[in-house]
């Protein structure tokens, strides 16, 4: 296990490094000189040249990359060409918001999917179980942003029960923070929950056919007890894999949901960066998102091993 962990950690670092190269190379393709953009259309060539050297964009790409990557390793994302503000703290703030959004959505999805999926599997022969299956299929077919729009329409605009958007830092007002996040969490969680419900259902269904569940019942457990004690942990193995994929999907789904709910998260920062041609900012945000996905994959792989002694 330790060997595996070391090896897998190595892969994570190597992938992250490779991702950094890809992201940097991709951004280098962006048309437009940041210095020219920053100075506007009627800047003098001297001023542009000066700013270029100030930004460091007049250096060879390799040098620029090493400088950037070296900074990243120390948590320094550089200074924005557009706002003149250091990028790291911005990303830090936004990452916190997005993380809360995504993790909350995930938890909600799990809270929906585990009971519903298990129930649907246990009762897969009766109407209610089938109804859950159909509902989850329908849930998958609805884009998250549409769910968000509808939720706002119903709960914020019509019922006036919750805010339609915005984000209040938890330190400022915990109650408002929570109220503001309910609908975004729901729009992410409902759709992801629908997807996850199907996986949970099929995993539980698979487990229910396993011989060891019959063994457990032969020991004197009831059907529910056997499933609880022996089934769910086994069923969690395929679900954890899917969960990893879903987290990555959620991270991106958050971009859209942030737009719908006016939440200042990473997605908002990314789209702003693109619109403002804030090259270094976009580069930093993309890198963080990609690294997050890689990290999630790493965690899932390790969790997989921890859950399943056969792989240790």
């Amino acid at each position, binding site marked *: 296990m330790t060997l595996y962990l070391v090896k897998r950690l190595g892969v994570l670092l190597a992938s992250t490094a490779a991702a950094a190269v890809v992201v940097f190379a991709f951004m280098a393709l962006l048309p437009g000189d940041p210095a020219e953009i920053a100075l506007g259309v009627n800047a003098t060539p001297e001023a542009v040249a000066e700013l270029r050297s100030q930004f460091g964009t007049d250096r060879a790409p390799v040098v620029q990359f090493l400088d950037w990557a070296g900074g990243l390793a120390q948590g320094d994302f550089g200074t924005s060409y557009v706002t003149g503000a250091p990028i790291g703290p911005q990303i830090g703030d936004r990452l916190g918001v997005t993380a809360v959004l995504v993790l909350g959505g995930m938890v909600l999805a799990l809270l929906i999917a585990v009971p519903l999926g298990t129930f649907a599997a246990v009762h897969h022969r009766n109407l209610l179980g089938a109804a859950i299956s159909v509902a989850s299929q329908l849930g998958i077919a609805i884009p998250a942003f549409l769910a968000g729009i509808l939720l706002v329409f119903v709960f914020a605009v019509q019922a006036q029960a919750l805010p339609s958007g915005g984000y209040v830092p938890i330190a400022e007002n915990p109650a408002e923070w929570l109220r503001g996040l309910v609908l975004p969490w729901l729009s992410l969680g409902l759709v992801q929950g629908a997807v996850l419900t199907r996986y949970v259902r099929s995993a539980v269904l698979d487990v229910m056919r396993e011989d060891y569940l019959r063994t457990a019942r032969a020991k*004197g457990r009831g059907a529910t007890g056997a499933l609880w004690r022996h089934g769910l942990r086994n069923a969690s193995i395929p679900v954890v894999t899917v969960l990893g994929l879903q987290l990555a999907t959620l991270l991106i789904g958050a971009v859209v949901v942030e737009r719908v709910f006016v939440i200042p998260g990473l997605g908002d920062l990314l789209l702003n960066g693109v619109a403002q041609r804030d090259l270094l900012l976009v580069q930093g945000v993309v890198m963080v998102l990609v690294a997050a996905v890689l990290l999630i994959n790493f965690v899932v792989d390790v969790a997989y091993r921890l859950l399943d002694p056969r792989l240790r």
Partner: protein
Amino acid sequence: MSALLTVEGLSVGADSVELVHDLSFTIGPGERVGLIGESGSGKSLTALSLMGLLPEGVVASGTARLGGRDLVGVQEARVKRLRGSELSMVFQEPMTALNPLMRVGAQVAEVMTLHGRSRQDARQRAVELLARVRLPEPAEIARAYPHQLSGGQRQRVMLAIALANEPRLLICDEPTTALDVTVQKQMLELIAEVAPALLFITHDLAVVASVCERVLVMYGGRVVESGPVREVFTHPRHRYTEGLLAASRLTPRGTRLPTISGSVPAAGRFPSGCVFRNRCPHATPACETAPALTGDGHAFACWHPAG
């Protein structure tokens, strides 16, 4: 003598298809009974119906009593108290019958804690049980995960689980089929040695011959012949038993009779009357009426018995 297990008129069906028909037999205390038949004969369903572990949608009717307690048609909550304590079962497939994520010792201990033993006590006894089923270094095995054990070892673990609460009846469903031949033999000896009373399900006549005292032959969801092993195997009366024996090496006269023609029909496709008549070389129009299982000691249900 008073029987340990009394089964009367046991039928098992799914939807409109009857899979086991009107089964009656008894097992005395300490008696080892074999239940034999090809796959699809309903023998496994019979065992599962006794355990109350029938798959969803499959229902049993009739009565089965273990020491005065009803097993069939009773609430799950009541049967589950008997499972693992009064009667227990060893399944066919040792590779998948154990939870892959749980240590072996814990799985053995579980059956004891479930029936009231303290956790610590159960753990200690689990190691003893593992030793009793002749697993070497039982303490180490207890800490192992199932995938670290061989098939034979796992089946011994299953046996340890089954024996943990000193049940009055042990049901074994093809416990050795998936094992290597050499391992099989040790396993059978072990079962014969440790079993209190035994219902042993198999398609292998030789196994029955070596373990059991009495045998029930099933075909098409019915018992077609029953009696002491020696007698049934040397003087089969039902034409199906005769065919089975012929197909095995246990032919009574050493001469090979033609094996049974055709194959076992799918559930619900058995003919009316004598269920074997469409494959029986001796069938006559008389066989369109179902024969009753008659005879004392050695009973059979056939209009045209052998010998």
